[in-house]
């Protein structure tokens, strides 16, 4: 079946512009995660969605970052007034449920470059 799909795969934009990153999870997966990965680094948790529950936004680094998930499926991560330190790969993952015994399935990511 189809895996987690992210778009665009690459995004280059000027400092100060807004960007939208999209994630389409595996069908039937209720849990959705956004992570940020800087070059050569580990995974930094950003936000978590589970079904119709309020999202956990505790990992968002500033109020320039926001995310939504419509209809319990597709999610959009928005970064406003981008800064050079926002340059990174943004990964989306989904899982069947949100418990610690469920594997996360990752998309190929969006490589964001801020000029």
């Amino acid at each position, binding site marked *: 079946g189809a895996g987690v799909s992210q778009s665009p795969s690459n995004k280059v934009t000027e400092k100060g512009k807004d960007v939208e990153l999209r994630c389409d999870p595996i069908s039937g997966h209720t849990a959705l995660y956004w992570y940020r990965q800087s070059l050569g*680094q580990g995974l930094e*948790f950003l936000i*978590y969605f589970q079904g119709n529950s309020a999202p956990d936004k505790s990992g968002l680094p500033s109020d320039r970052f926001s995310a939504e998930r419509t209809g319990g499926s597709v999610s959009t991560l928005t970064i406003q007034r981008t800064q050079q330190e926002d340059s990174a790969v943004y990964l989306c993952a989904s899982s069947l449920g949100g*418990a*610690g015994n469920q*594997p*996360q399935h990752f998309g190929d990511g969006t490589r964001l470059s801020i000029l």
Partner: protein
Amino acid sequence: QQPVQSPQAVILREGEDAVINCSSSKALYSVHWYRQKHGEAPVFLMILLKGGEQKGHEKISASFNEKKQQSSLYLTASQLSYSGTYFCGTDMDSNYQLIWGAGTKLIIKP
């Protein structure tokens, strides 16, 4: 709270064995292992739940020592395809949020 992975990097010849460790200072409910190849997404390998179980996947297996709060990933008779960065993700209370280690870079040479 970030788990500590060791070693940070290891270089092996094809056919050699490797052990990667993931240690936490907190009691754990589960440990997840993933492998990420350069420029690609992380790929799920296995989950170990508290209870000290051991799991295997082809020539890759792992154990979870609940008392030590440590998990070890064993790669036996390594193949070139095993190259990549291995991450452990730890979960303390069957929560959704994994805390990820910094990764162990594994290079396999022919």
